[in-house]
C-alpha cells in the first residue's frame, strides 16, 4: 500500500501528540513522585501537595489526557480524511 504525503503527515501528527501527552503523563507520575518529599511541604487546600497529586491530582490529569487524545485524534481523522464511516 502506497501512503500519500498527507497520510504520512497524519501519522507524524499522531506521534507528536502522543509524545506530548506521554511527557505530561511522565511528569504527573514520576517527576511528581520523585520530588514527593519536598513537594509535601507545600499545603494545597489542606492536603500536602504530593499526597494530593498521588491521590487525586495526577488521576485527574490522566483522565484529561485520555479525553483530550480521543477528541484530538477523532478530529484529526476527519481533517485528514481517514475517518471511518458514520458508526452511530
Amino acid at each position: 500500500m502506497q501512503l500519500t504525503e498527507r497520510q504520512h503527515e497524519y501519522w507524524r501528527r499522531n506521534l507528536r501528540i502522543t509524545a506530548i501527552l506521554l511527557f505530561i503523563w511522565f511528569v504527573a507520575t514520576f517527576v511528581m513522585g520523585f520530588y514527593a518529599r519536598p513537594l509535601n511541604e507545600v499545603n494545597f487546600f489542606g492536603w500536602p501537595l504530593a499526597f494530593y497529586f498521588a491521590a487525586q491530582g495526577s488521576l485527574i490529569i490522566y483522565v484529561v489526557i485520555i479525553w483530550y487524545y480521543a477528541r484530538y485524534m477523532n478530529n484529526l481523522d476527519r481533517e485528514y480524511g481517514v475517518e471511518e464511516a458514520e458508526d452511530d
Partner: protein
Amino acid sequence: MATPASTAGGAAPGSNRAFFSQLKKVYGLYTGGFIAFVIVLAIAEQMGMPRVFIGYTFLIATVALYAGIGIISRTSDATEYYVAGRRVPALFNGMATGADWMSAASFIGMAGTLYLLGFNGLAFVLGWTGGYCLVALFLAPYLRKFGQFTIPDFLGARYGGNIPRFVGIFAAILCSFTYVVAQIYGVGLITSRLTGVEFGIGVFMGLAGILVCSFLGGMRAVTWTQVAQYIILIVAYMIPVVWLSVKITGVPVPQAVYGKVLQKVSAREEELIKDPKEIQVRDIFRQRAAAASARLKDVDKSYADGKAALAAAVTKAEADAAPAETVAAAKAALAAYPPDAAAAKAAWTKDAALAGRSAPPTRHAEAFPGKDEAARDVSRRNFLALVFCLMVGTAALPHILMRYYTTPSVRQARESVFWSLFFIFLLYFTAPALAVLAKFDVYTTLVGSDFSKLPQWVSAWTKVDPSLLSIVDINRDGIVQLAEISIGGDIIVLATPEIAGLPYVISGLVAAGGLAAALSTADGLLLTIANALSHDFYYKMLDPHASTARRVMISKILLLVVALIAAYVASQKPADILFLVSAAFSLAAAAFFPALTLGIFWKRANKWGATLGMVAGLTITFYYMATTQPWLRGLFGVTSSIADNTWWGIQAISAGLWGVPVGFAVIIIVSLLTPAPNRDVQDLVEHVRYPNIKGDTMNTLET
C-alpha cells in the same frame, strides 16, 4: 426485570444509535430498580427482618440477576461469543471495563492498604489508573482497527507464524490464571461471610455465579453483566463513604473535604507518637519480641530451661508451704507452657514478630518514610518502580485489552478508554478519602476510649475474625492505646457502614458490591484463558478448519474446565495470594507491552525479535521473583540470601522493572540482526495505524 441483553439480542446491525439509547433506558431502569430493592430491604430490616435473611437476599438476588442476563445473552455465534458482536458503545464498554478491572482487591483491599501504608500505598492508586494512558496512547485504537478476537491473534498476525502466538498464549494464561485464582478466593470469602457457609462451599457457590455469566454467552454475556455489576459496585462503595463523610465533616463530598481531616489525623499522629502510654505499650512489645528472639537462638535449650525453671518454682512453692494461691499460680504457669519444643518455637516466632508493633505509627501523609536518607531512597525507588510495573502491566493484561475489540469503531475505542478510566477513577479517588476518614475515626474515637465501652462495631468484628481486628489491653490501664489495636486492611471497607452508623442492609450492599467486583473480574479472566486455549491454540494452531459452532463449543467446555481447576486451587488457600496478583502485572508487562507497542510503532520489529524479546522479558522477570520472593524461593529451593539476589534494592513485586527494558532491548537488537519483515506485514502495520484509508483493501476484521 428487564435486562439489557434482551435488547442486545434484538438490535439489527447498523442501528447503533437506537441501540445506545435503548441501553441507556434499560440500565437507567435497572439502576432505579436496584435502589428501590435496597430501600425495600431497608424497610424490611426496620420491620424486623433478620440479618441472615438480608445477606441471603442480596446474594440470591444479585447472582440471579447476573444469571438472567447470562442466559438471555446466550449465543453460539463466534463474533458474539468472542467480542460481543462489536457493538458495545464506548460508554458501556467503559463501565464493563471498570468492572472487569476492579477486582476484589480494589474494592475491599485498596482502602485498607492505604490505611495501613499511608502515602506509599498510593503507588497502587497511581499505577492502576495511569496505566490507562498507555492503553489509550499505544494500544486500544490500533487493536480495535486490527479487530480480531484475542491478543495472541495480534502477535500471530503481526509477527507471523505460530511461535510468537504460542509465546503469547503461554504468557496470557500464566498471568490470567494466577489472577483468577485470587478472584475466586475472594468470591469464596465474601460468599461465606454473607451466608455463613464454609469457605470451600463458598468457593464453589461463587464459581456457579461466575459460570452462569460467562458460560452460555461468552463476551456478550460477560459484557452486559459487567455493566450491571459496575453499577452495583459503585453504588455500594459510595454510599457508606458519603455517609461517613457527613458524620465526620458534615459535607457529603468526601473527596473534596478530606484534606482538612488529613491535617487533623497528622496532628493526632504527632500526639500519639509522643504519648507516654503509647510508648509504654510499644516497649512491652519490644521486650516480648526481644525475649522471644533470644529464646529462638537455641530453641531446645531455652525450652528445657524454661520448663525446668517453672517446675522448680512449683517445687519451691510447695516446699516453702506457700499460700494455696501461689502454688496454684505456679502450677498454672507450668501447665500453660508449650507442650513441646516445636510448639514453643511457633509461639516464640509469633512473639518475635511483635517487634513490628513496637514501632511508632507511620505518618499517613509522609512520603517514603525511613530511618535515614538511604532507607528513604530505597523506599522512593520501590514506590516509583511499583508504579511503573503496575502501569505497564495494566496496559498489557489481555483481559483488559480484549475489551477494546468490542467497540463498534476505532473512534469509539478511543472514547471508550476515557470512559473506562473515568469509571475506575470514581472508585480510586474515593479510596484515599475513605482511608483517611476511617483513620480519623479510629484515632480519635476508638483510641482513648474505655475498654468496657468499646463501640459496637469493634466487638462485632473482633468476634468475626481476630485477624481483621483485635484489641488487647496490653498495659492493663483499661484505656485503648493505638499500639494495642491490631487491624487487617480488609476491615476498612467492610466495617465502614457500621462505623458510619448505617443499618445492616448497607453492610449487605457492600458485600454484594465486593462480590460483583470479584465475579466480574473472574469472568473476564476466565474468558481470556478459555479463548487463548480454544481460539488461539486449538483453532489457529491445531485445527484451522474447525467450524464456528465447534470452536464456540470447545471454548465453553474449556471455560468450565479452567474454572474448575482455578476453583480447586483457590479452595486450597494458596500461601501468598496477594503476591501472585501483583506478580501478574510484572509478568504481563514484561511479556506483552514491548512486543505489542513495537509491533504497532516500529515496522522493523520482526518475528524473532518479538519471540525472543517476550521470552527474555518473561524469563528475567520470573528469575528475579524466584530469587527474591520468599514463597517462590521456597518452591525452587533457592538458598542464597535475598539481599545478595536483590538488584538496586528493588522488591520482587516490581520485577517487571527489569523485564520490560530487557524485552524492548532484545526485540530491537534481534530484529536489527535478522531480516526485516516482508511487505505484507508492513502493510498490516500501516493498516492498523489509520482508522480508514481509501483504497486499503486489507481486511483483518475477524467474524
